[in-house]
């Protein structure tokens, strides 16, 4: 009689509904992609690239907070490690192509992520945030004192180089499409992860860790893998960002940056795929606008107020609130 369960009309309609919502989602992603393809002809490409880099950074961060429930307050370390490694290699070895430098930067932050992860997952809950913050501060001081980072001055005038030795990235449009490709790759990785059986185990750990353990899952290993992938993608974002702006500085390693990525994710919607992207676009645009206005000195205050308002009133974030609204009115 088991076959009848699958053949039942109720089950069929559920499946159909699921397919329909999947199709709608694909259409939404498609629309976003088309907009992203046209955007550099309308908006200044460097600004768009900044958004894409931070969006990838936030997507990587959200993999942990949104899908495993781990709040990392040290993600700046991965952004900076990717950036410094890529920047140092490109400015030291003139023959090096950017994709290899990016690969090196991503590998470096992956390794760092492995180290952070092994230490931080030894404690749970609230300690996790403190440990990652302290470890990132350790990395920050390391970069302040190291000579290869240029200390307080940072690295400037990093050459963009030729992608695969062929495509000249000095051209902003070429650079933009490369950054877009990298972003789509990172987004696809997270999308695939979240919807895989592995991603479902992560969600189970988030919902109820003791139960996941009792079901026989090696919870620590799952957390570690998620942490390392998140660190790798954050490093990828940092590497690409360094090439875009041709500079790597201590700003990227500062705890402030770790806080900013939390804010981007929170504003956009924790635990939604598009949330961090929208949040990054929001925060980057806001900072851009504020920097040019009379309120330039008040950026931190305004970010802090947004933090407080989000926590008190819009915990679901822009995308989350939109989803709630959509479900209530159109379903």
């Amino acid at each position: 009689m088991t076959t009848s369960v699958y053949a039942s009309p109720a089950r069929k309609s559920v499946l159909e509904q699921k397919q329909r919502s999947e199709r709608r989602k694909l259409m939404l992603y498609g629309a976003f992609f088309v907009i992203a393809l046209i955007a550099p002809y309308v908006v200044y490409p460097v600004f768009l690239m900044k958004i894409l880099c931070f969006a990838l950074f936030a997507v990587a961060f959200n993999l942990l907070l949104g899908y495993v429930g781990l709040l990392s307050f040290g993600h700046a370390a991965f952004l900076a490690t990717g950036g410094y490694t890529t920047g140092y290699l490109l400015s030291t070895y003139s023959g090096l192509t950017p994709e290899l430098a990016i690969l090196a930067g991503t590998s470096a932050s992956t390794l760092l992520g492995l180290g952070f992860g092994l230490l931080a997952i030894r404690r749970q809950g609230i300690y996790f945030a403190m440990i990652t913050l302290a470890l990132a501060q350790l990395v920050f001081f390391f970069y302040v004192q190291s000579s290869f980072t240029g200390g307080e001055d940072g690295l400037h005038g990093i050459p963009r180089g030729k992608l695969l030795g062929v495509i000249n990235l000095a051209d902003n449009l070429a650079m933009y499409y490369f950054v877009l490709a990298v972003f789509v790759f990172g987004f696809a990785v997270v999308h695939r992860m979240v919807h895989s059986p592995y991603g479902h185990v992560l969600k189970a750990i988030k919902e109820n860790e003791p139960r996941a353990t009792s079901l026989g899952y090696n919870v620590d290993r799952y957390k570690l893998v998620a942490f390392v992938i998140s660190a790798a993608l954050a490093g990828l974002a940092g590497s690409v960002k360094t090439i875009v702006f041709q500079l790597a500085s201590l700003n990227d390693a500062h705890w402030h940056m770790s806080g900013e990525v939390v804010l981007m994710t929170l504003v956009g919607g924790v635990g939604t795929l598009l949330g961090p992207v929208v949040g990054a676009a929001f925060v980057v645009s806001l900072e851009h606008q504020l920097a040019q206005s009379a309120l330039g000195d008040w950026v931190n205050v305004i970010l802090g107020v947004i933090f407080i308002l989000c926590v008190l009133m819009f915990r679901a974030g822009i995308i989350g609130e939109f989803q709630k609204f959509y479900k209530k009115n159109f379903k």
Partner: protein
Amino acid sequence: MSMIFGVPIAVLSGQLLLGLINGAFYALLSLGLAVIFGLLKIINFAHGAFYMLGALCTVVLFNTLGVNYWVALILAPLIVGVVGVLIEFFLLRKIANEDHIYSLLLTFGLALVIQGVLTNIYGVSGLRYPIPEVFRGGVNLGFMFLPYYRAWVIVAALVVCIGTWFMIEKTKLGSYLRAGTENSQLMQAFGINVPLLVSLTYGFGVMLAAFAGVLAAPIYSVTPVMGANILIIVFAVVVIGGMGSILGAVITGLAMGIIEGLTKVFYPEASSTVIFLVMVLVLLVRPSGLFGKEA
């Protein structure tokens, strides 16, 4: 000059004293964090901002109203404590039933706002506060020179730490606090006003931070960002010690200060990172912390 481990004793003991003073601040701050964590189960990311508020309050009260050090020592923590109670009542309480991550993020946002506003008013260059008359000068101990004020900081911090320990472990109020840490719902059922207790606890934890700020005002440069960096160190101290015990927090704080001081003598390059390295070591060897009970 007599030497020890190839270092003049005067240099060594001088750095040890500086380390002990830093340690006293770490102890006071981690104690406040532990008290707040015990009942509210949140990590107060605004703790550094309250420390800074205590110091800034002292300077501003002196510059505008001529309030002297001793009055400020009481008044500044009280003012900041009231601010803390108000923040608990109007903000933190609203999300007490949500995931604790949100309270943490709220206090982080608060710290950004407090620091940002005050930076715009007072700048980052640092305000000076004179060492109070009584504590000018110092005494020569033979092997080192001990400024009176530095001795006072250590004594005052220790007295407050031990007083806090006594209050929590030995008094009726403290027993409520400990009971609330175990099971606040049950305690509410016994007719104790838990929401009030939570407000007061947050206020008290914040007062400890502000008290440390007042002590710091005459010896450190007072700036709106002075709390941010010390807070991250204190987080590492808390991870090392674990938040399970009050004496543990105090001992760990002092010990980390001393280790930092010693590092300044023997390997200055690592002095800013040594506490984080100790944290890494402790996480490897004893993940629950030196005095921690839970994992």
